[in-house]
């Protein structure tokens, strides 16, 4: 049964690859997925993809940027970039009120955020490769991280783990590496464009 599932998944991917490779950005809220998406789009298209904010759940629906072409060392990588809302297990509108929002606005944001999480999860099956963006300053032993990575593994979707915000003092790469010892983890600062060369090298390796 598992073999058949794997076979059909690979079969599906062969045909999808003929269209366009879908590269998804997944992770918990506020990890920097949209900041990274913007950095990639700025580097290769000269434009932003979406708006990033310090308040969680700024991205509340899946957005796709088509036809990004990365060129490096004579190689070329052509894909559609999919930015997804952060996956969370809880959403409380009162958290948004604490950040200065009015009650109605906060409730609306919370409602949209729950729909965003559902949408993110539904899009998992559409992805050919996924970058999981973790916040290097946060505790990596979160069940959301483990569940996302476990589901990608179960679907045989290649995964690249990125620890973002390494420019911050609180960033702890060692802890992230010890939480996911089976993965190579690239530490970056999407905001300041640090280690982006290493990131693009890892991306070529992932898609190869």
């Amino acid at each position, binding site marked *: 049964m598992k073999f058949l599932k794997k076979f059909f998944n690979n079969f599906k991917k062969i045909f999808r690859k003929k269209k366009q490779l879908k590269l998804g950005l997944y992770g918990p809220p506020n990890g920097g997925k949209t900041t990274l998406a913007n950095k990639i789009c700025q580097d290769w298209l000269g434009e932003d993809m979406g708006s990033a904010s310090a308040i969680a759940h700024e991205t509340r629906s899946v957005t796709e940027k088509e036809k990004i072409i990365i060129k490096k060392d004579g190689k070329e990588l052509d894909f559609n970039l999919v930015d997804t809302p952060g996956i*969370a*297990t809880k*959403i*409380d509108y009162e958290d948004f009120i604490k950040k200065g929002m009015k009650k109605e606005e906060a409730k609306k944001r919370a409602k949209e955020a729950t*729909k965003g999480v559902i949408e993110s999860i539904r899009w998992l099956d559409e992805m050919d490769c996924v970058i999981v963006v973790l916040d290097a300053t946060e505790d990596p032993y979160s*069940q959301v991280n483990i569940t996302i990575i476990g589901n990608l593994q179960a679907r045989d979707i290649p995964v690249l783990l990125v620890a973002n915000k390494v420019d911050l003092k609180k960033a702890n790469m060692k802890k992230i590496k010890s939480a996911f010892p089976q993965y190579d983890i690239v530490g970056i600062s999407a905001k300041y464009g640090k280690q982006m060369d290493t990131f693009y090298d890892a991306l070529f390796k992932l898609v190869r």
Partner: protein
Amino acid sequence: MALTLQFIPYSEIAEMGSARRVKKLIDAVKQNKIVLLEGRLRKEEEKDLIQITMEEIDNKFKGIELAVINPEIPGEGFFTKLKLGLVNVLMKDRTGLTIIGPATIVKEIKQNPNKIELLMNNTTTKSKRTSRRKKR
């Protein structure tokens, strides 16, 4: 406020389909209970649990806090890993412990390989529980 912990032995969900398992857990959590499930859900079921939680969120139910403790010891010796691998094959999803609490009560579950901490909402109490690895 009294805190209720509900222990669910794996045998209680073993024969259930995925949808019923997830519903049983969410129903218990929505009654403001902290669920201690013997074993763990399948990866697909964990994903469904998050998805259904999101569908259920309203003004009263704010979501869940979730943690799974696995008897996995990364970096240990080959024979220890082999033994644990064998236990996992035989016991399947019965190994480990899953903790699910309502977000209104459990603020955060902090997890690292040796220790699990439940940080509670509206109280300064910090309940600590240590799960010792079985040395084999």
